[in-house]
């Protein structure tokens, strides 16, 4: 059981800035995120898109914003638990006990949910029969590519993941690549490579087709794909890989006894506390009268939630407001030499 003053769920811009605020006022914190990297929606959905409404920054991309926020945290030693999803939040006396899907356990008086629209999960095939083969022969990510050696692998998707894996697996496997249209959105050199491999018979390319049905009793045996003109083809395959990007699911947050309306959590505007004492929600996931889903609002909400955390983490101390420009204590924490 790891003890901390505050646990932040979500490593997007709001979570990162909230961590900075906590450290400035002398609290420690841990950040948990289901993605394998820091940055949340900024890094997952629009790393290259310019953002124009971050205060005092004329223009920056999602990736630049993330890197700047990471750099801001450099003076502090903050532990990140990436690729972990918080599954359980339970009250134990005055603390919250938090468990992740990887078995990490935390005890903290303060949980700050900075979870955006929830956790990112792979988008799955719409065909219901896929469920029984999921994680066995129907996969949405590759953990061990050696299992495909000498097998037939059918890959669906038109982005870089689909193209890269089609190219890689074509070395040792029989690969079908299926996409709903002729154009691919992956890198041009990968698209060219796929077309070349297709010409040489190393990849069987089917465009304007989508998955229609999967067949097999205990083991996946074959699939049917259907074209826009309702032409159906049957393909034998051992594995299916689906790369349709990520979707955001509220997930376990819905189970923690919070006031949830339309995937957002109701908070007050003084502490950004939910209906549960010591659980706060900041950024896109929170709602209150006048809420704007802007990154700058997340920063403000995180700053106030951090002050509220102080009361529960240091019940016997009095919080004193200080400016970073003048406070010696804060400068010490930042490691700034006078």
């Amino acid at each position: 059981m790891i003890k901390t003053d505050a646990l932040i769920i979500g490593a997007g811009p709001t979570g990162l800035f909230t961590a900075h605020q906590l450290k400035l006022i002398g609290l420690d914190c841990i950040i948990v995120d289901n993605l394998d990297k820091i940055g949340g929606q900024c890094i997952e959905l629009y790393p290259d898109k310019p953002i124009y409404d971050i205060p005092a920054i004329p223009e920056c991309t999602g990736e630049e914003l993330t890197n700047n926020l990471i750099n801001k945290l450099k003076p502090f030693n903050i532990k990140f638990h990436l690729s972990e999803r918080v599954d359980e939040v339970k009250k134990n006396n005055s603390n919250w006990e938090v468990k992740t899907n990887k078995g990490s356990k935390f005890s903290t008086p303060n949980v700050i949910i900075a979870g955006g629209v929830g956790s990112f999960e792979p988008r799955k095939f719409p065909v219901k029969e896929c469920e029984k083969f999921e994680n066995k022969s129907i996969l949405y990510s590759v953990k061990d590519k050696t299992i495909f050696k000498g097998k037939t692998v059918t890959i669906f998707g038109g982005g870089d993941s689909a193209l890269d894996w089609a190219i890689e697996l074509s070395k040792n496997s029989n690969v079908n690549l299926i996409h709903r249209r002729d154009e691919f959105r992956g890198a041009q050199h990968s698209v060219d490579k796929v077309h070349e491999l297709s010409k040489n018979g190393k990849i069987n390319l089917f465009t304007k087709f989508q998955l229609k049905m999967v067949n097999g009793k205990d083991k996946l045996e074959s699939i049917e794909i259907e074209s826009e003109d309702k032409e159906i083809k049957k393909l034998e395959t051992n594995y299916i890989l689906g790369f349709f990007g990520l979707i955001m699911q509220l997930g376990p947050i819905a189970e923690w006894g919070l006031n949830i309306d339309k995937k957002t959590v109701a908070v007050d505007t003084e502490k950004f506390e939910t209906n549960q004492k010591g659980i706060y929600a900041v950024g896109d996931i929170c709602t209150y009268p006048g809420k704007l889903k802007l990154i700058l609002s997340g920063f403000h909400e995180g700053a106030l939630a951090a002050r509220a955390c102080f009361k529960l983490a240091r019940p016997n101390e009095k919080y004193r407001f200080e400016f970073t420009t003048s406070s010696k204590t804060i400068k010490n924490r930042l490691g700034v030499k006078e």
Partner: protein
Amino acid sequence: MPKITYIEHNGKNHTIEVANGLSVMEGAVQNNIPGIDADCGGSMACATCHVYVKEDWFNKLPKKEDGEEDMLDMAFEPKKNSRLSCQIMVSDELDGLEVNLPEKQV
């Protein structure tokens, strides 16, 4: 104001007035039409405001940008007449537009 008709997957119709300049997605969200999630809030980053547009209307709409077609790759059961409703801007010309909602968004 232009009237837009949203048809749920179960056939239930909702005809509402949507102000010019709003997107078809915003019209749905502001009027609590079930079946449009719009997780990303209209930044063309999530494909959860996916709709099907009847052919005659589909051809009248301004063409898709590349980014929209890319996102539709991720949508639930995309078809030839798929659009992201956040990218369809309501105007007088769209008065009477009908969109069909997919079975689900994710």
